């Protein structure tokens, strides 16, 4: 524990580094998210709860809590989390098990744990837990990471949570897997093993898809959403995107959010962003996310210890995977799967943990040395 403290002291001699641009980008995304969320959810709130601001209020509450967490976490030395990583991971397994038994069902999936008026999505917590756990595990045994077997062991560690989350929420399980793969990839000096693993993954995916016919149907819907009833959501998203054109129909003027895109404030919110702000707006949002990822990259590249680096990479991977998959789904570039857009889609637990992760990243940024 001595070395980080000395590093910290060394940095304190000059101006303590802190990634203000990361913070500004996050704040920008959060504000933009709330603004878009209000426009997108006002109709659904009015229809279901007779309150246009119903979703905004809940999201605003979660965001405020998240910002507080972000501030708090950014003040706590991230090395303290290393000791809690295993505990946090075990907790996420408990919570994810609990949700299987006591979870609230919504749209056919049990994903929420309720405690009075507050509901909580354990799978969001699982992402952070996995990032911290893997960062800790990898940084401890990095010298062994050259062997395929060790890489496999690392993956084995997260298998319980992937399995638990995956029973109800395949998309989140994929994200967790993705984060793990990125972390292992960065930790390992090898390249070719990963190419092999990639090939293996593709083969596995092909078998996985062909075993159950409904998965193949999903592929067919992806190719021709017009011809399937289940392609409705995808098609409505495409209508919204196409309607946007270059400059969009203007804030608040989306037609597709009026019940055509089902639950537009959730996974499909990007299509409404496209409709209201056009191609230009969509590209600006993508650029904001790219900048965010870039800042996380800068932090990961300049932090000296591997634990901090792995945390930054994990968070970067998390944001990256969700943004790419979400936009790919909304644009029907890949088959439909439910993935939210960070900071913008409606979801209290998601924004709370995302902001906490940002706090974590900001704290890591305090330990950066620029040479």
């Amino acid at each position: 524990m001595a070395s980080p403290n000395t590093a910290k002291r060394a940095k304190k001699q000059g101006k303590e580094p802190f990634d203000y641009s990361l913070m500004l980008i996050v704040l920008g995304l959060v504000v933009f998210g709330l603004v878009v969320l209000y426009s997108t959810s006002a109709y659904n709130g009015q229809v279901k709860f007779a309150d246009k601001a119903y979703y905004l209020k809940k999201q605003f509450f979660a965001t405020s809590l998240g910002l507080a967490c972000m501030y708090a976490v950014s003040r706590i030395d991230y090395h303290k989390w290393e000791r809690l990583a295993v505990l946090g991971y075990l907790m996420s397994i408990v919570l994810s098990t609990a949700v299987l038994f006591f979870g609230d069902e919504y749209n056919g999936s049990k994903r929420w744990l309720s405690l009075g008026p507050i509901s909580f999505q354990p799978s969001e917590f699982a992402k952070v837990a996995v990032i911290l756990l893997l960062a800790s595990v990898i940084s401890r045994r990095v010298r062994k990471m050259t062997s395929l077997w060790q890489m496999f062991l690392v993956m084995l560690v997260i298998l319980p949570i992937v399995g638990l989350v995956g029973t109800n929420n395949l998309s989140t399980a994929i994200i967790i897997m993705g984060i793990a793969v990125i972390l292992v990839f960065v930790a390992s000096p090898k390249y070719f093993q990963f190419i092999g693993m990639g090939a293996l993954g593709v083969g596995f995916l092909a078998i996985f898809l062909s075993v159950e016919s409904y998965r193949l149907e999903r592929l067919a819907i992806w190719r021709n959403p017009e011809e399937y009833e289940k392609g409705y959501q995808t098609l409505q998203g495409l209508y919204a995107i196409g309607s946007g054109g270059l400059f969009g129909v203007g804030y608040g003027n989306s037609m597709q959010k009026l019940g055509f895109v089902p639950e537009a404030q959730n996974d499909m919110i990007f299509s409404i962003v496209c409709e209201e702000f056009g191609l230009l707006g969509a590209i600006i949002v993508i650029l904001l996310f790219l900048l965010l990822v870039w800042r996380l990259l800068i932090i990961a590249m300049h932090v000296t210890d591997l634990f901090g680096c792995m945390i930054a990479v994990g968070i970067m991977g998390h944001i990256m995977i969700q943004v790419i998959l979400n936009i790919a789904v909304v644009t029907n570039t890949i088959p439909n799967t439910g993935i939210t857009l960070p900071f913008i889609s409606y979801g209290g637990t998601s924004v709370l943990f995302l902001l906490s992760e940002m706090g974590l990243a900001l704290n890591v940024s305090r330990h950066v040395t620029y040479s």
Partner: protein
Amino acid sequence: MNPKCKTYNRKKIIVIFGCCFVALLVLVGRLVKLMVFESEYYQELADDLHERERSIKAARGKIIDASGNVLATNRTVCTISVVHSQIKDPETVIEVLCKELELPEDTVRKRVEKRSSIERVKTNVEKEVGDRIREYQLEGVKIDEDFKRYYPYGSLASKVLGFTGSDNQGIIGLEVVYDSYLQGMNGTILTLTDARGVEIADAGEERVEPVSGNDLYISLDYNIQLYAQQAALKALEQKQATYVSILVMNPQNGEIYACVNVPEFDLNDPFTLNTDMDTTGLSEQEKQDLLNQMWRNQSINDTYEPGSTFKVITAAAALEKGVVSLNDTFSCPGFRIVEDRKIRCHKVGGHGGETFVQGIMNSCNPVFIDIGQRVGVEDFYHYFQQFGLLSKTGVDLPGEAATIMHKVENIGAVELATISFGQSFQITPMQLATTISSIINGGTRVTPHFGVEIRDEEGNLLKTLQYEKREGVVSKETSETMRYLMEQVVAEGGGQKAYIEGYRIGGKTATSQTLPRGTNKYISSFVGFAPADDPRVLAIAIIHNPQGVYYGGTIAAPVVQDIFSNILPYLGIEKEEVVSDEET
């Protein structure tokens, strides 16, 4: 204690970032494709989805008779539709619609479960049924009020008026011929709606008001039609006939006052057969054939052998050619030998010696064979043409049948003889009525018609319908002689049963066999007009396949007499003082 970051770790982070950058670039490319190149396509699809174009049906013009009675008008009916996205309780919706609309469950289920913005379940639903469904307050069920054609007098003049289809288009009768005047222009409401089909309040709607159709005023008179229909129904029942056609028209201008063809059908339910026939087991085609049969206007769509009523035309031709005069004498031994055929007169023993006048009064076949021969094939044919007999009358109803006549080169002596007394060729009752009208009205070929005027909704005159008239069909003298001759037929000859005391009535009877011959089916007819010196109304009654007595003079003449005794006073034709010249 903590291991440090290595260079290869940093390289790999850059690789990851590179992948991310490429992926986002691909997605931007995808967005450009969707939002620039395919934007129009999706925009259009989206607009289709958001826009609800509601058609506002235009009111179809009324059909109004000569006395101002409305014979065809509109009534409010409902169209029941379902909006898929608004339905909360599909099972209840299906149950209620099945019950109220009397539709099979799978039909309704298919409509209700179809994922479309709006699906029509049934049109032309009675307003009461629509109101009942509305009372259930089912979410996702829309009841739109609409117009439906309505005929207040049900079957009256059914084959003349015709009816319309569900798309407000005339199917038969005047509804077809005057469709362009009667049909209005449908209006539209274009609104934006949300996914539940709820109109968006501040989106503003584009509205194109419907334009009502124009009203058609016809010469047909409700009262005369009703009298004629009653008389026809009486004859139909008494004589157990297949059908009875009655035409009443103004011989001076061709206006038709009545056109009855019983049995008629219910215009408000034109797709149900008017017989109690069991149609189960019949193919769709067979059912349609039966309907088409029911809808036929026998006065116009069917031809028949006119028989002795045609002698009027033979006589007119002979008089016009000047080959016969009223006092010419003929002899009838009960038959004539024409080439190798023995053609019988209806009076087996023969009429003996008789004048031309008596020949007509007796409806003596040999007399007409003789004068037909005097006219000759060429001239006879020429007169047919001049009288307008070989072309269609041009009546303003669809499907008028053409005259079926021998070709001139095929008419030999036998054909000439049979034509002379109205056999071996076919014409429509309308053709006969029109041709006789021209002969008795002073020689003007008129176009029989129903349509008189087109007026707008407020009653402003838009158009007076014009019909062709051709003068000089026969000379005034011939016309006058023919009137005299036909008056004699009613006064003292075979048409006595059409006589009404105080009126001068002209007429001619006929009894012809139906084709093919040998079935012992007859067509009994009478054509009459009044007053004989200045014809203002002409009526023709045709009884198809009467049972029992089938002579025209016995069964058809009383029908016209019955009608005339009712309608002559109605038409303002005064009785004259009875001048009894029978004593002379």
